């Protein structure tokens, strides 16, 4: 044990949520220590790694991998960091690095719709949240101001103040699809943290169409920006610090966190308050790894809820060639979507969903396809141009209900530091299957309206992950069915808080980051309120 540190608050995980919370606490005068398992890597190095990568379509490929803080990888072959124990593989992706997973994303920053918070009382399915939309509205706005969010105003999520950022101008694809699908389908601007003007020392989007895997000019908000702001606000950030155990006293208060640096030297840090912000799979892993004589099933887990209710948006997709040139690949990769199936009485029967329309360049995918069909020479070039100009790719964000059987546990495998790797069990129920059928009917209607040819649906019965991982640290009023209370505090430990998407009891029909950011800011205020007046 050496270099032991202490602080008012120790935050574990330098992703967007941990960083936002740490920044707020530091600005209020707290000493904050932020521990991050991965390294700090600059945007320029990520751009270089992306350019040099042979796997351009694998958005993880620019992000450095270390066996000391491993993360799931799938190219060229899956690295089996995640053990798949269920009927459906849960192909999670996350980045263990300064800034976390939102380094690669399309900056989708959506609010839930109000009924998402009262799903059970409204529709008799799923769960109610311990808080309502109105409790979070102000925090939604604060997070939107930090990230510079713009979008369509009337998207089902009421606002007390207008979006702080104007929308990025619609691409040609968006204009054509919006106009061709009206009035049956209403295509709206996505709600995104993407600059349409210079803001916060970052320029406007200039259409690199490179949001994933990395925006080369920081026109979009991401966790790396949040983590840097934390550091600039006086938060002490320690990277390559892999927390492997939480310690507690006889009363159950958390007293210390132990971490390995990348030389496997152990360090112990102490604090008044601990905040776990290490992703919806890695945080449960840490809690389960911290089992002790007093807490045999792990920290925060006396009722065996940690890691359960694992949710994502189980997605199906379709691609086809539109009967006119729509030119995907100019502007942001994910600019617009169809939101009219996000809420309604049908939620009693089947999943609600949102339909995401991709504007990502299709040249690579089309080229691969055309080469496989045997084209060469000028015909190859013509065919690439023809299809790349017309190809539309669509997928859904469909709500899965929380199910305690879907869960994160510890596998019997160990990583290079000797720490267990996660095991995941994931199944899909009938509610999802019915919602998927409704989605597919929409896909067919959209394809028909666009005069589509070359229609390819994703494989029936297979679902891809959207990486909107929720439920594993669910907040709730009843400790029997939840891990944390409405502030993200562990029911079992007075001074242990959790932030990140894991505390969200349900996954809704939109990307989950903004809700987690709003909750993290709310938790930060709660910590400040308690420690300044208590």
């Amino acid at each position, binding site marked *: 044990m050496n270099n032991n540190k202490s602080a008012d608050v120790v935050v574990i995980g330098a992703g967007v949520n941990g960083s936002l919370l740490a920044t707020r606490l530091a600005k209020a005068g707290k000493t904050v220590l932020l521990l991050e398992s991965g390294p700090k890597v*600059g*945007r*320029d*190095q990520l*751009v*270089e790694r992306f*350019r*040099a990568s042979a796997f351009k379509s694998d958005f993880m490929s620019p992000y450095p991998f270390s066996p000391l803080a491993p993360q799931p990888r799938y190219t060229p072959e899956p690295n089996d960091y995640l053990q798949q124990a269920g009927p459906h593989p849960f192909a999670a992706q996350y980045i263990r690095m300064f800034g976390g997973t939102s380094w690669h994303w399309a900056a989708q920053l959506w609010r839930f719709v109000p009924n998402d918070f009262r799903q059970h009382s409204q529709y008799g399915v799923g769960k109610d949240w311990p808080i309502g939309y109105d409790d979070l509205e102000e925090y939604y706005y604060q997070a939107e101001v930090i990230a510079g969010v713009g979008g369509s105003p009337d998207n089902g999520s009421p606002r007390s103040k207008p979006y702080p950022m104007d929308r990025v101008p619609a691409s040609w694809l968006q204009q054509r699809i919006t106009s061709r699908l009206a009035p049956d389908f209403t295509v709206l601007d996505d709600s995104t943290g993407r600059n349409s003007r*210079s803001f916060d*020392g*970052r*320029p*406007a989007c*200039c*259409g*690199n169409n*490179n949001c994933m895997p990395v925006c*080369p*000019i*920081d026109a979009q908000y991401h966790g790396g920006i949040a983590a*840097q702001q934390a550091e600039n606000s006086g938060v002490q950030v320690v990277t390559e610090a892999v927390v492997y155990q939480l310690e507690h006293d006889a009363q159950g208060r958390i007293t210390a966190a132990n971490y390995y640096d990348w030389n496997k030297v152990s360090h112990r840090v102490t604090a008044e308050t601990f905040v776990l912000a290490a992703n919806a799979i890695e945080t449960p892993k840490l809690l389960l790894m911290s089992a002790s004589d007093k807490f045999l099933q792990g920290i925060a887990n006396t009722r065996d809820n940690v890691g359960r209710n694992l949710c994502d948006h189980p997605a199906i997709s379709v691609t086809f060639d539109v009967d006119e040139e729509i030119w995907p690949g100019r502007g942001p990769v994910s600019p617009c979507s169809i939101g009219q199936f996000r809420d309604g009485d049908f939620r009693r029967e089947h999943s609600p969903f949102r339909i995401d329309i991709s504007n990502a360049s299709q040249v690579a995918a089309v080229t691969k396809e055309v080469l496989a069909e045997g084209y060469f020479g000028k015909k190859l070039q013509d065919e690439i141009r023809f299809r790349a100009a017309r190809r539309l790719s669509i997928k859904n964000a469909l709500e899965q209900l929380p199910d305690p059987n879907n869960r994160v546990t510890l596998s019997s495998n160990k990583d290079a530091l000797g720490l267990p790797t996660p095991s995941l069990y994931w199944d899909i129920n009938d509610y999802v299957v019915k919602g998927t059928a409704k989605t597919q009917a929409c896909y067919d209607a959209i394809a028909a309206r666009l005069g589509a040819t070359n229609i390819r649906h994703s494989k029936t019965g297979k679902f891809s992950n959207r990486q909107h991982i929720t439920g594993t640290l669910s907040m709730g009023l009843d400790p029997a069915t939840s891990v944390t209370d409405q502030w993200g505090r562990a029911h079992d430990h007075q001074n242990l808080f959790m932030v990140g998407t894991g505390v969200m009891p349900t996954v809704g029909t939109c990307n989950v980051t903004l809700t987690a950011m709003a909750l993290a800011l709310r938790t930060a205020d709660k910590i400040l309120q308690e420690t300044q007046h208590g």
Partner: protein
Amino acid sequence: MVKYWPLFIAGALLAASVHAQSPDQSELIRRGEYLAIAGDCGACHTEEGKAPFSGGHAIVSPLGTIFSTNITPSKQAGIGNYSEAQFAAALRKGLRGDGSRLYPAMPYTAYARLTDDDVSALYAYFMHGVQPVDVIPQQTALPFPFSLRFSMAAWNLLFADDKVYQPDATQSEAWNRGAYLVQGLTHCSTCHTPRNFLMAEQQGKYLQGASLGTWYAPDITATALQQNPHWTRQMLADYLATGHAANGATAGGPMLEAVDKSFSRMTPEDRQAIATYLLPADSAATDPVAVKDLTPVSGDDLPQTLENLSEGERLYRDNCASCHNLSGQGLNGLPALKNHPVLNKPVADNVAMAILQGVWPEKGQGMIGFSGSLNDNQIAAVTNYVMQDMGHSKVQISAERVKALRAGGDASPLMLLSRIGMGTAVVVLVLLLFWLRKKRALKS
């Protein structure tokens, strides 16, 4: 009714004088507003986020920080008590209403060229077109000897030329208008003319380029503008209107601010007049470097190739090529660096400053700054790569210079110099006065 006529008329007159301005007066105010834009008064006297002209903007000079004053018509905090004569004296002679001296951070040496008519218009605008703000901004406190504001009187005697602009009958109307603006309101020489050790503009080097400590204001004499890269009047006018020109120039730093706040809001005729004065002999435009409609990023990005890149080129690829393209040819309307005029300057400071701070036009695409992500060595390396490999310049920058730029410019030897210099000047002045008096005494 009739017997009240005189009262009625008196009342109407009073009402008119209080509540309404005559058409002439409002036209005067409007003209004054335009002149205040041309003079870019707001650049220094309006702090971002504060009320217009309420002052408090910090101007970092080599001698210390000067805070701009409140020039709203507030009687307590601004210039509300100034008569037009006092206003004119401040504008043209650097003499405040209370009789004390202004520092030449206020470009009164240039505003001295203003005609009486224009001073009247400005006065009308500042008295009636600006909302009074009763807040006194932070006061300037320069170190000795500059704390002695009266020392400026000697400075003015030595360096200030307070003659109103005299049109040159041999030149066109446009040329004269341009000369009036450039020498006066738009005070181009404030930045573009180098200063001597007492901070006075060196008239022998008028508009020949000067360092502002960080950014470099280039030579804008006709001789320089006609050299490579070549400027035409139209390019100059476009540049003043938009911050970029067909020869590839793009404005950054204080010039971009001047474009955004002042030049772009002037009339096209005035911008043309400025161009006419700066380029008395216009030359034909050479075709700008043709930009194809598609400029694909291409190149060898095999790991072994990347390993062999110089540090500057690698940094360029990682940080710059997404917008400026692999060989600096620009991309989708984003600026090309090849043939960019900034690479043709006697110093590389502006390239390094743009990299450090970014470029932030009010409208249109900004460029991110790299001060937080690249160190001094890295910024020097990428600057030298751009200057030399793209610009074929022999000019280099050192990491030490980048460090100085990052810190806001060189720690200036000016303080010491001017303490000596100021002393010398005072001695010279005293001797001069003594000699003049003696001469006069001899005459009489």
